[in-house]
């Protein structure tokens, strides 16, 4: 009995020592001329004044870490730097339009190492506070436990718009807003009795828009333009290329959400061409999309090259133009998205095909629609796939899914575009726990900005799914 008491006392003492022992602080530092190996890579990035704390970890086997950000200092055991929310907000408010120096020291093998400092440029232009995305395994072929989430990027709050538990483990995808407005949005829930769930000021209705895949709202929200495709998954024998997905057929349509009718033009549904990724221009005068001449698939997939094109559209009369203009035809273009101010069009270019998610060479490009000049966004792109982008409502930020860290799991990255149209180094969506991305086994798919929180939740979506679907003529 005495022995047990001794053991308990020793354990308690050890626990107390652990809890009360001081965090070491730097002394006799050795300076190194390299940036700290932090993850996510937040070195020399431009951030909005309303972003959540950029918590990170140091990829080193260190006993303790000291992080100095402006006047704020964090001393912590281990390799994680986690900021206090209030201190962080205060720091950003005090640093608007300023550059904050970040200095990191780490205790490695009983020696304090002081890394080369880097900077965070805090800009006035806010980022839209909400981000929606789908969480899915990167394979995309089959699914289990899919979720569509909305995350507040100003803090770490997350709420589910679609959750597998309430929605019978169905496939869900593509939650898109009209003008980043949370009062008008749409998402798909697939499977038997599935449909498009339209949110109009929190009122949810189920629509039966046959075959709709990629879509975008017109500025007034009256129309959506969408593509229908027969999607075929294929496999590369070279393991570094993994999966390929292509369309054996695809056309673009317009749906009138008021009169519930669908129409198209022979130019948008040419049987000898593939048309996909339609989106309205912010003034509603054009539909931008991608088009490719049909080739023999899958054998000639490397010849499958999509052009960036546009066709006129009149929102007042609901009529489609008679001429297709080609804007860009080098390599294969995917996912054109126009900035809300109408100045830029952002798109992905890959060597071939229509599924850049698995193409490591897939990069973003930005065209100035006024001058036609193209920015290859060298500072933004990586050696892995960078694609599936969306604009913030003020046209100063865009989000995209990048696989730069491991080539497998897409993560949302935010990029600042300044008033001169210059893109800055992007940064990854911050997480409460710096190890989140290391442990996570789901891809962040199809990220979209929203100006506010959507006025519905997963229970409302589950109820809407039970409604009779509105059919389109």
């Amino acid at each position: 009995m005495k022995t047990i008491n001794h053991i308990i006392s020793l354990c308690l003492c050890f626990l107390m020592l652990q809890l009360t022992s001081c965090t070491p602080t730097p002394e006799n530092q050795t300076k190194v001329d390299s940036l700290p190996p932090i993850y996510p890579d937040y070195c020399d990035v431009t951030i909005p004044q309303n972003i959540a704390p950029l918590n990170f970890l140091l990829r080193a086997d260190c006993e303790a870490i000291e992080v100095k950000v402006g006047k704020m200092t964090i001393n912590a055991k281990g390799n994680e730097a986690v900021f206090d929310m209030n201190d962080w907000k205060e720091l950003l408010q005090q640093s608007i339009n300023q550059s904050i120096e970040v200095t990191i020291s780490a205790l490695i093998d009983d020696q304090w190492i002081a890394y080369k400092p880097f900077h965070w440029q805090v800009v006035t232009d806010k980022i839209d506070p909400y981000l929606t995305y789908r969480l899915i395994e990167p394979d995309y072929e089959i699914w289990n436990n899919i979720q569509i989430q909305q995350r507040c990027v100003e803090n770490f709050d997350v709420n589910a718009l679609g959750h597998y538990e309430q929605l019978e483990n169905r496939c869900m995808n593509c939650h898109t807003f009209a003008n980043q407005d949370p009062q008008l949005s749409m998402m798909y829930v697939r499977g038997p009795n599935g449909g498009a769930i339209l949110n109009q000021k929190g009122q949810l209705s189920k629509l039966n828009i046959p075959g709709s895949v990629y879509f975008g709202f017109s500025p007034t929200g009256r129309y959506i333009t969408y593509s229908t495709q027969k999607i075929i998954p294929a496999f590369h024998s070279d393991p570094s290329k993994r999966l390929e997905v292509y369309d054996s057929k695809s056309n673009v349509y317009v749906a009138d959400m008021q009169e519930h009718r669908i129409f198209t033009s022979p130019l948008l549904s040419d049987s000898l061409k593939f048309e996909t990724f339609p989106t309205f221009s912010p003034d509603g005068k054009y539909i931008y999309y991608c088009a490719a001449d049909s080739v023999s698939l899958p054998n000639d997939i490397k010849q499958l090259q999509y052009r960036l094109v546009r066709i006129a559209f009149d929102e007042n009369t609901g009529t489609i133009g008679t001429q297709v203009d080609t804007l860009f035809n080098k390599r294969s273009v995917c996912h054109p998205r126009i900035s809300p101010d109408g100045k830029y069009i952002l798109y992905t270019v890959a060597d071939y095909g229509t599924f850049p998610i698995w193409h490591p060479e897939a990069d973003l490009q930005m065209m100035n629609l006024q001058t036609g000049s193209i920015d290859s966004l060298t500072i933004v792109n990586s050696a892995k796939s960078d694609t599936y982008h969306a604009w913030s409502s003020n046209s100063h930020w865009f989000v995209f899914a990048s696989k730069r860290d491991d080539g497998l799991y897409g993560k949302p990255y935010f990029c600042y575009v300044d008033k001169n149209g210059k893109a800055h180094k992007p940064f990854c969506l911050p997480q409460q726990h710096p190890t989140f991305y290391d442990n996570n086994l789901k891809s962040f798919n199809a990220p979209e900005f929203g100006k506010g929180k959507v006025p519905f939740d997963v229970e409302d979506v589950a109820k809407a799914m039970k409604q009779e679907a509105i059919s389109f003529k």
Partner: protein
Amino acid sequence: MNNKKSTYYSLIALTIGAVISWCFFQFWYAYHFFFQEQNQIFLWSRDYISTYCDKPGGLSGLIGDFLTQFYYYLYAGAAIQSLCIWGIGMLLYRALVNFKVGHLAAVLLALFVMAFVSVCHFSTSYHLSSTISILAWTLLLWIASIIRNRKLRFTMLACALLPFYLLFGRPVIKKIQAPDLVLEKDFSVDCEYHFGNYDKVIKMVEGSDKWTDQMVFFYNLAQAQRGELPDHLLKFTPTQLGTFYRIGPETPMLTIRNMNKLYWALGDMTFTERAAMMTNVFSNNNRNIRMIRRLAECNYVSGDSLAAEKYLRILDKTFVYSRWADNIRKNGKSIYQQKMQMVNHHDTISITDNAHFIMMQLLDANPDNTIALDYILCSTLILKDINSFKRDYDRYCMTTNKPRLKPLYQEALCIWLAGTEAPPEEWEKYIKRPDVFKRFQEYNQQRGSTSFKDTYWYYFDKIKAPEI
């Protein structure tokens, strides 16, 4: 005195109950523990642990998953489970006695609950977290029983119910089922193959009086690893190579897992990764430690170090596999040297996961891939597709000048040569084993005789080919 004696005997009875449970699970059901352990993951990471707070019952889930990872070690699974069951029995017995239930009734009831929980563990979908939850609720009952004051007892229960529910949730009770000893056999060959004990797999299957598809599948895979698949292909009919499976949304998880094993053995990293990801998707909480290991391995082999590191980092946070991850980082090149040579770097695209096509690609890239060669030839032979067999044999054995002189292949070639009325020089070109030729002549005189049961000719004439 009597009371002390009763308590003493009751404790012995409960301990014997727990020991019986341990013996059964250890000696007749041990591979179920490996299945449980490998079909989940537990990470020693704040971020990961915080996910247990999302739902009621987080603490029991946390403790259950934490302990389940140690099922990897021999004897640990049965010991952990039996200790929990013993704890439930003891607490329940003490609580009942405190509530003035007679010793005999209390011990019988406690034994009944212990037996019930043990039976729940027969199901693969029953997790230790449920037993932890039962243990926690029994603990609450025992705490209530030691409070003599009735008012105080009810106050304590009223205060503790919600926190206990939030921490330990509601135990998920399974429908009573008999122990699935057939599944245990399936798990045993799967596990032993996974641990690289190919001889043991072969012994287990050959020593068994009944075989399942899964057992035969692993038997063939183990023989293929020793380069002896064609020598033993016809030992069990119908045989199971796995090359006719297709993966889709309806495919059972165990089949997808088997496909992962098959593709890994064949050397196709694209499909190994695909099957591993899909197994993950259908595992408990979409995580499967065996597949995380495999994802690290296949990315390492295909040269994608960034992707491999993603999975190795996850394994770093486990108690059981962190050393394995370290070893791969340090010695991966020598461990996977042979596999790396098998990787197909010639890119073609296909819309099918037809294994024949995959194996052709692998052999075109590396004609020395004996496992792929045996699987492609054996697959066509199983289907009695002699023309395809001859085509593949010519392509990968004759044109490369590396004839594979296994009796099975020689026997199949005899059928083709006889069927096409080939001239003597053709016979000489293909049939290099006079013993086979002599036996073929004998067989033709006693066609269908059971004394030739071990030959492909008998299979060809008498056994029904699988329908695909």
